[in-house]
């Protein structure tokens, strides 16, 4: 199987006042295309920093991130924007929808700027929200807002879906609907899904689980048998 990402000796150092914080200390990793990958780790273990760097919204201090063989750590800021535009779909814990656009307009905002997108309504259909298409974010529940965010992320048919705590703000029932939506996207469009979570049980859904400890990958597990969202214990 092709590698979607190849990570070589990735390091990230922050300076907070006079303190030097090593968010990532030499991460080496391959992430195959088309898998569902869960990043697990305590707060401050470096998983969010890792996700931000491979998603092209943060720069590494040193090391290389190869996306399908292309080195992201040496391209310009505008190329990085193009990279995000074409290849990456983001789902945030805090949804980050544009409050002044309706659900379908939030999706269309992204489909307008990329090459072979889905119809916005099809993206909403994929996550079961067609009937809420013309509602503004203020008229939607948290779960619904998150599903709109997923629809927005998948509408451009990205290679990769990066999700930072997508169910963090949701109850278990809504959380499971959101997770199912992500798995559906993975199967239907062969999208690589990389999901950060605190919830270890979500790891049972993944093809591959990567554990972060103190800015390093401590181990990588491959699930022989994956569970469905209904089967996991919240």
């Amino acid at each position, binding site marked *: 199987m092709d590698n979607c990402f190849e990570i070589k000796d990735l390091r990230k150092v922050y300076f907070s006042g006079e303190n030097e914080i090593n968010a990532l200390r030499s991460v080496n990793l391959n992430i195959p295309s088309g898998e569902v990958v869960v990043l697990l780790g305590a707060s401050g273990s470096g998983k969010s920093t890792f996700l931000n760097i491979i998603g092209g919204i943060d720069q590494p201090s040193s090391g290389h991130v190869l996306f399908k063989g292309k080195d992201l750590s040496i391209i310009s800021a505008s190329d990085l924007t193009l990279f*995000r*535009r074409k290849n990456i779909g*983001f789902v945030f814990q805090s949804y*980050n929808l544009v409050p002044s*656009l309706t659900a379908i*307009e939030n999706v269309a905002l992204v489909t*307008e*700027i990329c090459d072979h997108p889905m119809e916005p309504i099809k993206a909403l259909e994929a996550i079961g929200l067609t009937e809420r298409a013309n509602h503004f974010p203020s008229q939607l529940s948290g779960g619904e807002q998150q599903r709109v965010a997923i629809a927005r992320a998948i509408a451009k048919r990205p290679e990769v879906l990066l999700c930072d705590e997508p169910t963090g703000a949701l109850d278990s029932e809504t959380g499971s609907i959101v997770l199912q939506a992500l798995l559906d996207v993975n199967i239907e469009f062969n999208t690589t899904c990389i999901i950060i979570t605190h919830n270890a049980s979500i790891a049972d859904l993944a093809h591959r689980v990567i554990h972060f400890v103190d800015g390093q990958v401590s181990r990588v597990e491959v699930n022989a048998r994956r569970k469905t969202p209904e089967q996991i214990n919240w």
Partner: protein
Amino acid sequence: MIVTPLNRKLTRDLWNIKGLVIAIVLVMAAGIAIFVIMFGVLDSLRLTQSTYYDRYQFGDVFASLKRAPNSLESRIANIKGVSVSEVRVTFGVTLQMPSLDEPAVGKMISIPDGKEPRLNQLYLRSGRMVYPNETNAIVVDENFFNAHELVLGDKVMVVMNGRLRPLRVVGVALSPEYVYSVAPGAIMPDARRYAIMWTSRHQLEAAANMKGAFNDVSLKLNRGVCVADVKQSLDLLLEPYGGKNAYGRDEQLSNFFVDNELMQLESMGVIAPFVFLAVAAFLVNIVMSRQVAVQREQIGMLKAVGYSDKAIAFHFLQWVYILVFFASIIGLGLGSWMAMGMTKMYAEFFHFPILKYHFSVEVMIFAVASCSAAAMLGTLFSIRKAVNLPPAEAMRPESPEVFKRTLLEKMGFHRHLSFLSRIILRQIERRPLRVLLSITGMALALAILIFSYFMEDSMSYLMDVQYDLIQREDVNIAFAEPQSKTVLESVKAIPGVMAVEPMRTVPVRLTSGHINKNVAITALQSGSDLRRVINQQLRAEVLPDQGMVINERLAGLLNVNIGDALQVHLLEGSQTTLSIPVVALTKEYIGMGGYMELHVLSQLLDQPPKLNGALIRLDDNHSARVFQEIKRHPEIIGMNITSVLRQIFMDIMAENILKMVSINILFASLISFGVIYNTARIALSERGRELASLRVLGLTRKEVSYLLFGELGLVTLLAIPLGIYLGFLMIDAMAVSLDSELYRIPTYVSNQTLGLSTVIMLVCSLLSFYLVWYQVEKIDLVSAQKGVE
């Protein structure tokens, strides 16, 4: 101040938004400074003026007459209400100055032999006064002395009663009576071509054939006396002696000009401070409401741990106090400093020999208090919002803002709009008040710019109408006595004179009902081309063969219209009263009077056609020769060169009004910049997260900036028509407040002014956009992920 944790928080919070703080402090300081400057300069100038008038015994009532015996003086002194009276001899002369091709004109005024004048005393700048009975010695007005770079002891060649006499300059003086010295027929002072000279009564009586007689009266009145009554009594006494019309200080030309200048300064100056304070209030409002929004969770926490509502309200009020504090220091300091400089400049312009500064503490307190009030007003809602937040709610992040489809979309326009444009429109519709305030702030800045540049437009328009359409002669001359028309032939014979036309002016009193007005009627020959009468559409009117044409302003004052008859009382010669119909109205910005055809006037006067002035068109190459020739004619007592009048007018404008204008322009640019920069910065801060998410989704910096600047751009564009409208309102208000019998301000604004003002505003906008665009680059994409600010 005790350094409590809240105070520490305050200083650090302020430090974090130092760019905004500086912008607001500067706008507030500008408001306070302009306040202090305007009132400081006006108060100081008024104090200087009144001190000068008091100290040098400036008269209250004045009159001139043909000739009266000295014995009349005691009767004048006995008029009820008169405290001091003085009679003088004055005499119009021409001067031949080596540095001028054309003759200069002058006025000689007598001073009592061997004693100080009782009224209208002189401030001797250098040299000495004229000795009693000293002949051929004069004290010269400082303006003229300086304009010709004279030195004490120089001789000035003066034509008096047809005889050329060298007079020695023994002293240089200033007089409260001639703060402004304006030659007869001119509308602006011209120090090079108009001299005021004082000499001994004895000498002037002899030169002017006024032995034992006088032709000029000044009176000082007791406090509280009715000026009109005294004028009436004086007119009654002087009428048999050719007394033309007594006038008070308000009609005294020099004083009228000074007052007019001060009024003009005032009307230019009072609008600006209020605009600044309004803008400061607006800026404080947007910054404070933003701070409360940003600090929502902190406020919740503070309340949760036990800080009272009062403590929190006080905390936010302190922000305002600190801003006002710094603005006051800068504003008062800068304002006082600039006011002193400007007072000095104006005092020099008016040639006040003394200079009094007056910075009233009340004005300063008022400026700071207005500024505080404006800032408080701007903060009040935000503070209330902060205080009213229940702690638990405050600590939760705000739920998404509620948006609706805009009116345009409901009307079906949305298909034509991109999503980014929809975001912009919905933002605007969601906060109409904020947008309206932003538009108003910018519109005010534009209005001040237009208002400031308008002065120059208006003046050059006035000049164009006056000197291209009405007064088209190159030179006009005045004769001492009425001449027969044959004199035109001899003028025309002078080489270089291309055309000559006659002119006759007659002083008259016009009466309609109970309203009287003393003006001059100018009579021109039919089809006169060098001097024309223009109608309200600025087209030349042919003078009718009966009746008279009057200025529309005069018609308004006398409450007459075309077809009405006026009682015209001649103030010279036969002194008869005639009833003459008004047959047309004329448009003029300068002066006020009537026009008649020369023959019609002659018939009314029952005289053969005579003239006391001539209008001349010159061959430019020979003008010097013509002036030399005119100099040689003693019967010519006055001469005005149109190009010189025009130049003087523009010079005075440049020296006086335009300085105030440049200050206004500076401050208006500051406002434009302040409003737009702050609005853009706040918008960036409010929507930073949204913009960051969009960046993460793959929108480019350009697209994200469109979102931000699209709204601001729209605000800027909408501000343009409103600004132009407000500018015109300010201009109309000013034109009405400055409307006087001497001149009217045309409310003419050139396209160039509109364009330039708009460009300045747009440049300020673009500069702010650029600075904010620079910040867009620095949006933290990672923080958007985390969902915190």
